[in-house]
């Protein structure tokens, strides 16, 4: 590990580090410049006698313009570069593997596509992009892995996403970066980056054990979502095959842009689906009657997450 910056272990680390290096060069240059000038002036113009000659200089438009323009240019370069890299950080590739993350005081739960769950240990495969869909059960937490250069606050009441492609096999610290109470500094977990072979073995459950409290649940979220779809009555109004019943069909719903009754439009993502289950009338799709009841208190956050996972498979 270098003393300056932690090891880089994700696809995103290099571009972040390049900007950091550039900002560091600029900063060191200006710091040395100002300090050197300050010290040089302090020595050269120190008061040697009470009647020492001084110059009456009040301003100088040329030099003032120069030292306004140069920092402006450098700052604009830093801004643009930072923004470009930020766009990469914020936009996961379509093929990313999804993992549901629940942060709560003071632990981390991970649920994988296969229905596997793990506690305080996230398992990912080397060189495969991962997209985390994260929610909090209580207060704000923040997912932070220094070696990946990623961080995202996790809020109660909505989903936040974060993605990365781990590039190095190993175990990395996952830290909670948003203060969340007395257990905050103990809200630590591990990210295990496994080679494709090891990951396949782990998926089959050969080698690694799940947390004892969670081992009992092994139905995948999609399966649970499918059950909920019929048990909780969604099917009465929403088809899965594209037929129009009472509400919009679930087929091809995820990722679509819907026109709303008020003329605006909305992208159907995890947060929109969650909101429409808990508060159906908040953003009504044009052409439908506001008849759906709220499922607040009927479907838990976990069940909503599972339902959304199911809806996402309906293509």
């Amino acid at each position, binding site marked *: 590990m270098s003393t300056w910056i932690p090891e880089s272990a994700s696809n995103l680390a290099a571009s972040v580090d390049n900007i*950091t290096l550039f900002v560091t060069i600029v*900063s060191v240059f200006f*710091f040395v410049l100002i300090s050197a000038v300050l010290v040089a002036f302090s020595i050269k*113009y120190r008061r040697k006698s009470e009647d020492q000659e001084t110059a009456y200089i009040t301003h100088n438009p040329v030099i003032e313009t120069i030292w306004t323009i140069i920092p*402006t240019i450098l700052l*604009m370069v830093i801004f643009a570069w930072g923004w470009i890299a*930020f766009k990469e950080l914020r936009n996961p590739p379509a093929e990313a593997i999804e993992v549901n993350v629940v942060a709560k005081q003071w632990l981390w739960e991970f649920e994988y596509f296969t229905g596997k769950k793990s506690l305080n240990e996230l398992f990912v495969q080397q060189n495969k992009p991962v997209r985390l869909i994260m929610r909090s059960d209580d207060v704000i937490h923040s997912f932070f892995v220094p070696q990946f250069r990623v961080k995202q*606050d996790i*809020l109660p009441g909505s989903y936040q996403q974060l993605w990365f492609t781990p590039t190095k096999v190993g175990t990395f610290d996952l830290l909670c970066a948003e203060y969340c109470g007395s257990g*905050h500094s103990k809200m630590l977990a591990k990210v295990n980056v496994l080679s494709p072979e090891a990951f396949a073995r782990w998926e089959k459950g050969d080698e690694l054990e799940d947390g004892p409290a969670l081992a009992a649940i092994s139905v995948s979220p999609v399966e649970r979502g499918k059950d909920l779809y019929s048990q909780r009555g969604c099917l009465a109004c929403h088809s899965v095959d594209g037929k129009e019943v009472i509400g919009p069909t679930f087929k091809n719903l995820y990722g679509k842009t819907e026109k709303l009754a008020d003329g605006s439009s909305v992208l159907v993502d995890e947060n929109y689906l969650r909101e429409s289950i808990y508060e159906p009338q908040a953003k009504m799709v044009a052409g439908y009657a506001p008849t759906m009841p709220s499922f607040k208190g009927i479907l838990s956050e976990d069940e909503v997450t599972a339902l959304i996972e199911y809806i996402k498979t309906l293509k």
Partner: protein
Amino acid sequence: MANGVMTQTQHIPYLAQKGLKSWILTTDHKRIGILYLVTISFFFMIAGLTALGMRYELMTPELDFFRTATEYNVAFTLHGSLMVFFFIVPGIAASFGNFLIPLMIGARDVAFPRINLLSFWIYLVGTAILLSALAQPADTGWTFYTPYSIQTGTKVIMITLGVFVLGFSSILTGMNFIVTIHKLRAPGMTWSRLPLFIWASYATAILQLLATPVVGITLLLLIAERAFDIGFFDPAKGGDPILFQNFFWFYSHPAVYIMVIPAFGIISEIIPVFARKPIFGYKAIAYSSFAIAIISFFVWLHHMFVSGISETAAAIFSFLTMLVAIPTAVKVFNWTATLYKGSIDFHSSMLYALSFIVLFTVGGLTGVYLGALAVDVHLHDTYFIVAHMHYVMIGGTVMGFFGALHFWYQKWFGKVFDELTAKIAWFLIFVGFNVTFFPQFFMGFQGMPRRYATYPEEYISYHALSTYGSWILGLGVLIMTVNLLIPLWKEGRPESSNPYGSLSLEWQVPSPPPHENFDEIPTVTDWTYAYGKK
């Protein structure tokens, strides 16, 4: 530069009257300034001690000084909220602002002396409410982020109510100073002749007036949510936690400039006097204070780049954040250029001013890292932020404050401190500060999150170094304080009423000044910085 200046023996100094009543009912801006100075210094000491406690705890990775993590969390909450709301926000603006503004513009007092006293009383009520909460203080951090601040079992209401009440003091003081600067300038004291401390105080007063109500309302909503269960911010009750962050930073970002702009003003006063040079680029410094004040209202989202805001919002606010860096950089260049071809005397206050330039430059440059979106993602909520913020707040504001204490000490109190001891204290403070906070930049790069009562082993050497630094810093502040307190109990007066050869009006009256400041209101014939003019 000024006519009609009185001689030293003619009048009774403003400090002559004794007794409690002469203080608690005073409407003299110089005395009210002292009342603020004593109160903010008291909170600075308390908050400083909690910081030493936190640093001592962090010597080792495990809990060993505090009994529980909650005690540590309470300590950093107290440290942050006392330092921010009770020391640094009222800080220079209320203490030196009160003392200096009327003297510098050639007035007998502020525009509304009774409202000025009222501001102080409101400030005291706020502090009393806060002190009553100290028995069981909050553990939310000074930012009171929801929904944690709604769900925690510790007492949040009293501390936020204290801050709410303080806000009114801030608003009234800001209003008072704006009117004073507009209406009470002496004949000939045009806007382009004003000392830069006045320009800075004016910019600060506008921020106080416009931004403070927002934090007042926000904290009131928070209290309403806790006390009456109304769901503004907690999603469990249908609220929005990010709304709180928007409200909070809409105040608290401009507040950063409420804290630091007065220090800009102080540095602009000290450097020309001890370099015997006109300030370089007067207009650039004066206007840049305003530019910073205005832009500072539109950068608050840079505290929330990882909170889930949209990409577009993040880009706009990153851009505006870069804009605010430009006038700040220009100021640093101006102060440095003022030294060119000067005659520099290294008085203790000048040492603080020069170290301000160096340390504030570090604070400003590290701010650029945080303004760059992708870099901020990595550094957000780590010790890098802690270090950056302290380089701005201590390296900037506190260095300015200490510099001001040493510069105007003779004028304000009519006493003389020991200069050699002051220089030793400055040296310890400068070294101690850097040893404490510089390693924290590296810790932050490595990924050490802030607000951790315990931490992974790998950060131990940085933390230990930082703790040693805090002892040097603490010792320096102690020596400085004792050195400034001792003369107050001793006989003796300054030999000259203007020992450093300042051209500013406050130095043309006796030390300490008489109650009415000026025998006759002076007529100003040249600008404040005409040093070496032929």
